[in-house]
């Protein structure tokens, strides 16, 4: 499989396919929620976001957003490079949050209970052949 450009529509489609295939509703704890990762300082200078919607543990949506961003229960914001490091498994998302490289908006108590799920999601995304 050729490498896909990070945050491109093709990358998003492949991400959604892999997440649906590898993360069952059981593994996703049957949660219903929405999460958005906001990438600042993308290589072209723009701000982009990946919006994930889950219903009872099933991935309903994974879309790349630009310009006016949708609202989500959890919003994680950081530099493109930080997310790229996480996707390449060079940086743990927890460490990025604890060091302030990422900012979380949303109920922290609930977020902590979902941290393991986000780890699983990142592990799947890290398997996509990607050009950053």
């Amino acid at each position, binding site marked *: 499989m050729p490498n896909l450009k990070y945050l491109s529509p093709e990358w998003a489609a492949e991400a959604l396919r892999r997440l649906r295939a590898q993360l069952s509703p059981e593994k996703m704890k049957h949660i219903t929620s929405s999460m958005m990762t906001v990438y600042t300082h993308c290589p072209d200078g723009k701000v982009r976001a990946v919006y994930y919607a889950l219903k009872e543990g099933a991935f309903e949506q994974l879309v790349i957003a630009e310009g006016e961003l949708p609202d989500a229960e959890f919003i994680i*914001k*950081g530099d493109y490079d930080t997310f790229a490091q996480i996707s390449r498994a060079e940086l743990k998302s927890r460490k*990025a*949050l*604890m*060091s*302030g*490289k*990422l*900012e*979380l*908006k949303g*109920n*922290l*108590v*609930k977020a*902590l209970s979902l941290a393991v799920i986000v780890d699983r999601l990142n592990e799947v995304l890290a398997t996509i052949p990607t050009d950053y």
Partner: protein
Amino acid sequence: MATDPYFIDHPARVRAIQGEMVRQGVDVYLGSRLRTISWVADAFFPWRTYMVIPRDGLPTVFTFVIDAARAADDSWLGTEHVLGYGPMGGQDQITLLANEIHRSLPGGKGVIGIESGMGTYLPEGHITHYEYEALRAAFPEAELRNSIGIIDELSRVKDAGTLNRFREASRLVDVGQAAVLDAIRDGGYRGKSETEIAGIAIHAMRKAGSEWDWTFTGGQEIASGHRTGYAAGACTPASRRVLQAGEPLMVDLHAMYRLGLGDHSHNYLLAPATDRQRWHAQNFVGLMRLLLETYRAGLSPSGLADDMLDYAEECGFAEYMVPGFEHGIGLLGDEWRIGTHTGPFPFWTDPDHVYRPGELIICAVQYACPEEKIGFRYENPMLLTEGGNEVFSKFPLEIEEI
């Protein structure tokens, strides 16, 4: 709800605060004092906690994330309005507070009510210098205005649910006092330490339902011998000192029921007692009887102190009296100062504060004779009424010889 004797109408409290905010031109209120958090959220918050109260709608509480789920479960505000903060990007205290306050301050302009001041009480919880400066930087065009008078005035006269919580906490303290008396009578005190006496009381009170040995003065204050008579009074966390025959014993117990606080001190002479010790004991009990007959709404702390010290002078023991006869009390976190901030010394009780019916105090008297290694303490929650008072602990006022 109405059948629960301990019911407190917390939404009505929030509406009362919001009404005062409008009247005083405060757009959003940032509470940080333990007394404010307890009074509004009705849960135990042992960590640094903040409450953002908008002019409309429910307050939102921010507490240390490790305890947020438990606190949300205990509070009527629930998980949507009791949130956690922690050391993560976007989740630190200042970021969360700034985001929440911003909802009430379009454009960052307006008045933010804060809780500033100083207190004798360590866990008071006034805003810190760092918090103040950080919020000022976050809202450069807003005014940060000290607004502690809002809560202090609203919480001054106690409602029925609050009073019943104090009555129940006092009943629990009486259970502890009875357990201590059972344990020490007929020579049972021999070989026991102050900490052991504290443990006997704690076990009995916890068994009866007490949630916490709530004071920051050491939980249960047990003193024997010279420790009963420190000059100017004392807080006496139990020590490992072993009780001795011929010495006084002070048993000052504290229980908590749904943030209502029990606080009663009882005193003993461990036989054989000397005539001089009995003289001290009679002085103390006599003064206490007079004081309990005298207290009522309409009086002031300074007026009462004058009358009691005159009596002590006439009877020849004024030099052993600590010249104060009460301290303030409210739900957990509201301790020490009485009333609002009208006195000559900022953030201290106004000595000329005139008690209103429905105010609750701890009637607190300390008799101390360090040179003779003897002292006594009386403490009891007291509701002031038009015609007199009601003390909540019913353990008999006397100094028994054991």
